[in-house]
């Protein structure tokens, strides 16, 4: 493995340095049918799940076949996507915000061969490489964060629970039977670098134990004032501890103030908080971002904790499946999950979804909590 220089000279980093050039310009990558009809689209139709046609006032049509992508994707897989796009789409494609891959063709006769090609490709393990779907009143791809593949503060994995959940919801990825679209998201800790707080169903990793303090190394590896300042709830203070007869500078954590965010661990590697039984999953439901009919709204916590059951998280996927089925059976056409829950009442939501209501689900975090309690005599038995 000989080092090969790109041309960069570490002794003179500023020589020939190119900076601040930004991303590539979007229109370099437009397929001709898009470039020619941008801003001229008249309407669209979903021909079947995963297949859209957009019709331009010029008479042109673009057919889009949407296939699932894993956000975690190898270059071997990307090259296979490129091979498909070269074969069917003149070398153009796009990705959606929700990690789907869109293959576009400019005439209807190119659609079926493309779909057949996509659906015929499977991984050695047996799963589909490019299942077609994710449109309309169904479940589309789950957006998610890194989890155990790359993050230092996750309370659960991301790719694994997503795979397990989408296996369970797979039929709804390929169908339009639901009352409206249903967006599932996953964030592997409460920092939510994937903002899941407005999803129909959110899977959220959550720690339940304060950090472990590695007193012996803490002052050697961390700058204590930075660890203290990192805490959003001011739960950390400096302390002196005795280890093996030696007085050491360290920190103390006021456990009842800890919200388990892991920000201290980011600053100080001597304060790890991951735990096999402490960590698990919170399920949230009823959020949306669209302004359609009702205003955008936040997801609500409906299950306070489910254990991390690697590799397939059966309690989590079963709970999600129950919510989806109850919603499917009960909601009106066009009604999002949160709107349905509000119409029937949350007391009814828990009953229909067969979820226990525990004290953890009553908000007690800071001022907004009060506004979530019931201030009316109207409720259902």
């Amino acid at each position, binding site marked *: 493995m000989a080092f090969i220089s790109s041309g960069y000279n570490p002794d003179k980093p*500023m020589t020939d340095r190119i900076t601040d050039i930004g991303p590539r310009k979007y229109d370099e990558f437009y397929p001709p049918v898009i470039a020619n009809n941008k801003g001229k689209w008249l309407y669209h139709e979903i021909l079947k799940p995963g297949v859209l046609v957009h019709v331009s006032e010029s008479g042109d049509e673009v057919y889009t076949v949407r296939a699932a992508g894993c956000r975690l994707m190898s270059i071997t897989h990307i090259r296979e996507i490129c091979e498909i796009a070269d074969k069917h789409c003149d070398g153009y494609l796009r990705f959606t915000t929700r990690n789907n891959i869109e293959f576009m063709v400019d005439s209807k006769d190119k659609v079926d061969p493309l779909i057949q090609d996509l659906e015929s490709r499977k991984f050695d393990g047996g799963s589909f490489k490019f299942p077609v779907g994710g449109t309309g009143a169904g479940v589309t791809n789950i957006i998610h964060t890194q989890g155990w593949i790359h993050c230092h503060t996750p309370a659960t994995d991301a790719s694994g629970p997503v795979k397990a959940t989408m296996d369970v919801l797979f039929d709804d990825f390929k169908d339009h039977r639901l009352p409206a679209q249903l967006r599932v998201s996953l964030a592997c800790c409460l*920092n939510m*670098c994937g903002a899941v707080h407005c999803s129909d169903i959110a899977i959220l990793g959550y720690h339940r134990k304060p950090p472990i303090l590695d007193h012996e190394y803490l002052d*050697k*590896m*961390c*700058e204590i*004032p*930075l660890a203290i300042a*990192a805490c959003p709830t001011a739960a950390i203070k400096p302390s002196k501890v005795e280890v093996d007869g030696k007085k050491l500078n360290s920190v103390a954590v006021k456990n009842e103030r800890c919200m388990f965010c892991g*920000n201290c661990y*980011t*600053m100080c*590697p001597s304060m790890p908080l991951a735990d096999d039984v402490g960590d698990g999953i919170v399920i949230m439901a009823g959020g949306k971002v669209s302004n359609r009919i009702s205003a955008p709204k936040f997801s609500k916590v409906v299950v306070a904790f489910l254990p991390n059951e690697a590799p397939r998280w059966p309690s989590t996927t079963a709970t999600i499946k129950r919510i989806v089925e109850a919603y499917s059976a009960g909601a009106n056409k066009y009604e999002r999950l949160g709107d349905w829950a509000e119409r029937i009442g949350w007391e009814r939501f828990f009953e229909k979804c067969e979820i226990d209501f525990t004290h953890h689900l009553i908000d007690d975090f800071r001022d907004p909590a009060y506004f979530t309690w019931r201030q009316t005599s109207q409720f259902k038995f």
Partner: protein
Amino acid sequence: MDYEEAKDLVVAGLTKKLKNKSKFYFNDLAKLIGEKPRAAKKYVNQMVVEGVLEYWSSGSTSMYGLCGTGKQAGAEHEE
């Protein structure tokens, strides 16, 4: 204020606090320089290019420190 003056203020200010911590927020630097953030940023950028200051990032937040100071480098095996 010229650049050298700003640099002296920052180096002196950060060195004084080095006993406690080595990483600072941008606003701490702006206060040391005594200019509004946008004006201070020009000096700070220059100090990074000259190797006086270096960045530290939590991923979500960024901090600044005098080059090579602090315990993080050891903890991250990047010495």
